[in-house]
């Protein structure tokens, strides 16, 4: 008998590990995964879903989303919610790149407007937005200014001339978590954050010019301001060294805390602390500060993207209607109200490699989208499509208002490097009409599209299970990679 024999199919693409699987489980496990991928599902990731279902105060289901894969302690592509009364918080449930997320900027441009300028646009975007290992942002923060970034997020950026005040209305949390407290963030995290503010990062992070290739839901697309043939820009980036350091700091703190509070763990990387402890409260405030850093970072990049388009196309960003569609976090922990067995409860929701997918009516969703549910942005990998979906009532009922966040790696980087050649990948993409700019050949090989799960399938499962519904497909035109 393997674990998989114990898993029951609930309906198409939805599976359950009963809470009776082992005595320590306090909730059941749930997977939203393509039926055809079930056999390939890593046992390690299943074990992680079970481990999380054993944590104090866990509610209803420990959830694996269509892009789930093995992570450190918590899987990537997972959601877990804990009671505010007897639950815990765990930095491993958020991950190293706090508020790694995705932003989508629209325009009134079409392919005809940019056709002769694609090379120049990608060259200049690549130049104006620093990326790659060992890259510094272009700005120098004044002494102490990092605290304002951490406390105020995208609001700081707008106040300092990066973008428009109305941008803030269409960011998750309005780009500023009010719980943030910069005084809790270590000097080390601040020092790593200062030089990197306003930089994209590397690895799977990217900046991409895309074209809306297909609309699946005209009505919702109209509400989101999207239409077929529209040129859009997607940014995938996070909190850089600042967030990585906050996570590392608190992994060490929680490693001591869980022993102190006598929490039984099957894996040290699930290190956590009871919500009413000092350690937990400090982590939540520091995490919020790092999340704000990421929103400020994406806001600054938005400004430079607009400037670059203005420079190349000779029109103002306002004239080109380069408004933000939305900005989502996919590594974050937040207090939210959810229905648990017909009772409204305040819960602490951990999303690691998961996108919030709040359905219609939620007050957290910007007013102009509230009737249809929030925009859900799911980035593809280099050279593959990205998608816009909308949040649903089903997600509220089943997944604490969450859905998948991307493709999910299946091949290791070294295997990808061995199997693929940067020049061939570049040529292959160019033959499909996709331009690529990268800081090194290594990143092109490591990020080869075939090293990832098929994003189309991930999105299809989200859609067919109802934990987000398809709105639009975005096709890449030019990619900048760190």
């Amino acid at each position, binding site marked *: 008998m393997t674990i998989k024999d114990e898993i029951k199919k609930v309906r198409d693409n939805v599976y359950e590990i009963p809470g009776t699987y082992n005595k320590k489980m306090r909730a059941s496990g749930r997977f939203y995964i393509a039926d055809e991928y079930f056999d390939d599902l890593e046992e390690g990731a299943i074990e992680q879903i079970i481990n999380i279902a054993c944590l104090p105060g866990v509610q209803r289901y420990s959830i694996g989303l269509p892009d789930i*894969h093995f992570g450190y302690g918590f899987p990537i592509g997972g959601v877990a919610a804990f009671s505010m009364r007897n639950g815990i918080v765990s930095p491993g449930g958020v991950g190293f790149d706090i508020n790694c997320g995705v932003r989508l900027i629209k325009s009134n441009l079409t392919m005809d407007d940019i056709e002769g300028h694609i090379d120049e646009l990608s060259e200049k975007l690549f130049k104006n937005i620093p990326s790659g290992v060992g890259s510094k942002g272009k700005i120098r923060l004044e002494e102490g200014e990092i605290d304002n970034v951490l406390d105020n997020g995208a609001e700081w950026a707008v106040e300092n001339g990066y973008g428009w005040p109305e941008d803030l209305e269409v960011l998750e949390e309005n780009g500023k978590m009010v719980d943030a407290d910069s005084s809790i963030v270590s000097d080390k995290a601040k020092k790593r954050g200062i030089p990197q503010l306003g930089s994209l990062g590397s690895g799977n992070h990217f900046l991409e010019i895309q074209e809306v290739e297909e609309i699946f839901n005209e009505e919702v697309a109209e509400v989101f301001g999207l239409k077929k043939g529209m040129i859009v820009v997607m940014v995938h980036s996070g909190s850089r060294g600042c967030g990585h350091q906050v996570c590392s700091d608190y992994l060490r703190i929680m490693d001591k805390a869980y022993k102190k509070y006598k929490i039984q763990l099957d894996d040290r990387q699930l290190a956590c602390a009871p919500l009413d402890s000092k350690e937990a409260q400090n982590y939540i405030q520091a995490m919020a500060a790092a999340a704000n850093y990421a929103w400020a970072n994406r806001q600054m990049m938005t400004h430079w993207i607009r400037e670059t388009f203005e420079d190349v196309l000779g029109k103002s960003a306002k004239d080109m209607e380069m408004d933000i569609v939305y900005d989502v976090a996919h590594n974050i922990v937040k207090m939210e109200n959810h229905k648990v067995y017909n009772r409204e409860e305040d819960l602490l929701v951990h999303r690691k490699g998961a996108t919030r997918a709040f359905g219609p009516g939620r007050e957290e969703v910007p007013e102009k989208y509230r009737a249809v549910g929030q925009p859900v942005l799911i980035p593809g990998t280099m050279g593959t499509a990205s998608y816009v979906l909308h949040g649903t009532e089903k997600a509220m009922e089943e997944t604490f208002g969450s859905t998948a966040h991307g493709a999910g790696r299946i091949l290791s980087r*070294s295997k990808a490097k061995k199997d693929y050649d940067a020049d061939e990948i570049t040529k292959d993409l160019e033959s499909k009409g996709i331009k690529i700019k990268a800081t090194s050949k290594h990143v092109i090989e490591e990020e080869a599209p075939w090293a990832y799960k098929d994003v189309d399938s991930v999105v299809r499962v989200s859609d067919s299970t109802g934990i987000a519904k398809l709105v639009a497909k975005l096709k890449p035109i030019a990619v900048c990679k760190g």
Partner: protein
Amino acid sequence: MKSYEYFEATADIGFKAYGKDLNEAFENASMAMFNIITDTCDVEPKTEISFEIASEDYVSLLYDYLEELLFHHEVDFMLFSEFNVKIDENLNLKATIKGEGINWDKHERKTEIKAITFHKMEVVQTDGVKLRAIVDL
């Protein structure tokens, strides 16, 4: 005997480092780490940085040490190619590391390391020392 070697971890990369004692194994782990970021052959040991750390056990010491290296790489904007580590029996570590400022025209640009993980991290002291670590990319 090899001083270090890499192994695969789905989204990331792991390494094992060896040495006749803790000091040498930690030094080799440093080389393994910086050869993920760049090719250390091109990094001249021009500038020296010294630091001290203390931890509660050997695994935590390895974690804290590698974190400290990453911190200096990012904050001082440097690459390193020479490492001198002294660990005493009370888990105090003194390190002197040498390298130079990053110059991507000269140094090969490989992969950014986001963080050190505790995943499968190991310090084994039998017949020499063997270390294992996985870094988040």
